[in-house]
């Protein structure tokens, strides 16, 4: 632990250079914008900024891109509270009590508590990351190809279980992502696969095109489908002096913030869109432990404090699986993995020992970034809220312009824009059919890794598929996967026989 703290101090030295501070600030700012602007979430935002990081070293690039992720968690609450429109999915819950508070003229305290909770949750979660990431990385050194393969299958199934909506639909999206990931060169033998003679496809499907297409353009198209009159809303921007929460507000929120931190931190360690799940879990818990549950839905400040803290804590702890085993557990870490690979950094158990300067500088930058965001969001929130006055019929074309320019600049390639357009249409259709894009993205990014791990495992065991259940860690993961697959089935049976005993435990 002492050694970790020493390395962390070194990380601060790197993160506090003028250049890295500037990238941290840019990341936090862009994240806040992305969080505030409905129609562009952290996935699209990060994908759009990847090309700008090409000229940077990997540390600065990751500092900036990570800033967008947690910055979006701060910004997302603003629109939820002020206009009842979540800026991104992790702020949907905040609308319930946040917007009610705004209608009662208490938008200021709601915004302030959201920022304060995010800051406390975020910084405590980073501390947790510092404590447990290095020992976990040492433990993960025991992972061989079979363990990695099983872990990825586990991640896919759990993600599909918790994404919301139907398990079978999410699993199909994972498979589509995995299949798209096989296009290009066979990662083991180098044979061509599904390229149809095209040199463009030989270079594999550009995951940035899928990310911007499904999550940026797809969202723009969904908004374009709404009648133009529905795109406008009135915004009341609070004044700065109204921002201070009262002593009673703070007292009521403290418990919610601490519980939200814990819930968020542990959700980040489980496969799935962690920040989103964390908000639902935190809201449910707050409502249950509250002495006045009847106030929930009518402007209870705990209903803002808990979820907004939890989503930021989850954002920070979601970096643990990415850094420690190199397997992203959610769509945003998957995008960050893609960005790291572009910069020649392969996250995994060896990352912390081999690239300590990168790891510790990024961790240190998260502390700094959270502080910057607290400052940005407390005094300046009225300023950002003015963004909401830009009518959506102007905003949507502008977002499209960014997608168009950003997509081209990734590889200076026009075919990439066509791919983005195709994926945008796909994203629009998927939304209409109630299919999720996140499992597809995770499948696409992890596909080549899963295939390599799988084929190496089979080669190690000379064709004995038992290798996956003979090794204890791998067997445990597969058993957990089987449970996760059976769980919805059990739920179905229980619904049919309401008096059946033995309720399955969701937390398992």
């Amino acid at each position, binding site marked *: 632990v002492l050694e970790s703290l020493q390395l962390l101090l070194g990380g601060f030295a790197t993160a506090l250079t003028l250049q890295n501070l500037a990238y941290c600030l840019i990341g936090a700012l862009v994240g806040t914008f992305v969080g505030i602007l409905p129609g562009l979430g952290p996935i699209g935002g990060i994908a759009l900024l990847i*090309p*700008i990081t090409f000229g940077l070293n990997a540390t600065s690039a990751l500092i900036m891109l990570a800033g967008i992720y947690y910055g979006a968690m701060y910004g997302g609450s603003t629109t939820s509270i002020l206009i009842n429109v979540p800026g991104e999915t992790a702020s949907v819950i905040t609308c319930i009590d946040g917007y009610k508070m705004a209608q009662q003229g208490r938008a200021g305290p709601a915004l302030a508590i959201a920022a304060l909770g995010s800051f406390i949750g975020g910084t405590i979660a980073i501390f947790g990351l510092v404590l447990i990431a290095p020992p976990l990385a040492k433990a993960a050194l025991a992972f061989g190809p079979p363990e990695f393969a099983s872990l990825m299958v586990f991640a896919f199934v759990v993600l599909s279980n918790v994404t919301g909506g139907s398990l*079978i*639909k999410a*699993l*199909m999206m994972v*498979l*589509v992502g*995995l*299949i798209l990931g*096989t296009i290009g060169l*066979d990662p*083991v*033998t180098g*044979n061509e*696969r*599904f390229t149809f003679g095209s040199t463009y496809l030989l270079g594999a499907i550009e995951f940035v095109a899928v990310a911007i297409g499904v999550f940026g*353009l797809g969202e*723009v*198209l969904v908004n*374009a*489908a*709404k*009648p*133009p009159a*529905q*795109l406008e809303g009135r915004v009341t921007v609070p004044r700065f002096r109204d921002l201070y929460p009262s002593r009673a507000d703070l007292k009521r929120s403290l418990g919610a913030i601490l519980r939200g931190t814990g819930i968020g931190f542990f959700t980040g360690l489980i496969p799935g869109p962690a920040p989103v799940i964390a908000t639902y879990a935190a809201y449910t818990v707050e409502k249950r432990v509250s002495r006045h549950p009847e106030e929930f839905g009518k402007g209870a400040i705990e209903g803002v404090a808990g979820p907004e803290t939890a989503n930021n804590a989850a954002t920070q702890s979601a970096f643990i699986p990415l850094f420690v085993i190199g397997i992203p557990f959610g769509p945003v870490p998957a995008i960050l993995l893609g960005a790291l690979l572009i910069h020649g950094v392969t996250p995994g158990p060896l990352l912390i020992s081999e690239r300590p300067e990168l790891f510790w500088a990024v961790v240190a930058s998260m502390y700094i970034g959270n502080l910057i965001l607290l400052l940005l969001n407390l005094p300046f929130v009225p300023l950002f809220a003015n963004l909401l006055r830009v009518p959506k*019929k*102007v905003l*949507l*074309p*502008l977002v*499209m*312009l960014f997608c*168009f*320019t950003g997509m*081209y*600049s990734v590889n*200076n390639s*026009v075919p990439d*824009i*066509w791919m983005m*357009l195709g994926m*945008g*249409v796909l994203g*629009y*259709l*998927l939304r*209409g*059919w109630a*299919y999720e894009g996140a499992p597809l993205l995770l499948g696409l990014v992890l596909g080549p890794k899963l*295939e390599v791990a*799988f*084929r190496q495992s*089979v*080669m190690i065991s*000379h*064709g004995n*598929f038992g290798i996956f259940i003979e090794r204890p860690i791998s067997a445990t993961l597969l058993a957990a996967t089987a449970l996760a697959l059976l769980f919805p089935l059990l739920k179905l049976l229980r619904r049919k026989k309401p008096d059946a005993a033995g309720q399955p435990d969701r937390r398992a």
Partner: protein
Amino acid sequence: MTAAIALFVFGAATVALALQLPLGTLRMPGTGFFPLVLGLLLVALAAAQGVRLFLAKAPAPAAAAPAPPPDGATRRVALFIGVIALATLLLQPAGYVVATLVLMVGLLRALGVAWGACALIAASSAVASHFVFVRWLGIPMPAGPLGF
């Protein structure tokens, strides 16, 4: 149901194409092995989903039917796709600024912004994005015959 059928076809196509690739052996899986397994799984899941939808549809057809899209939705989405495609086609031959102008004018008009405001916003965003992305960030966007 449309989605289940589309996914089934996609899975089946994957299987068919994977079978043309060297499959290798179980000891040494080849290029086509992994996609073949994925394709088979997708076909199975899509079939299961299709059957489930078919069975569920009989008792409650009203609940399964999605809400009809609002007026003009399809037209606006089609316009968006068309305008983006046009801008993409123009990017290489006509240059970034022209493509941006087409993109912005097309999308703003598709959303019903008046011509005057539309021209102003499109022109200023085209000029601004040229200066920010090309001049300032140094992104080599294609230049048209006019040099920008």
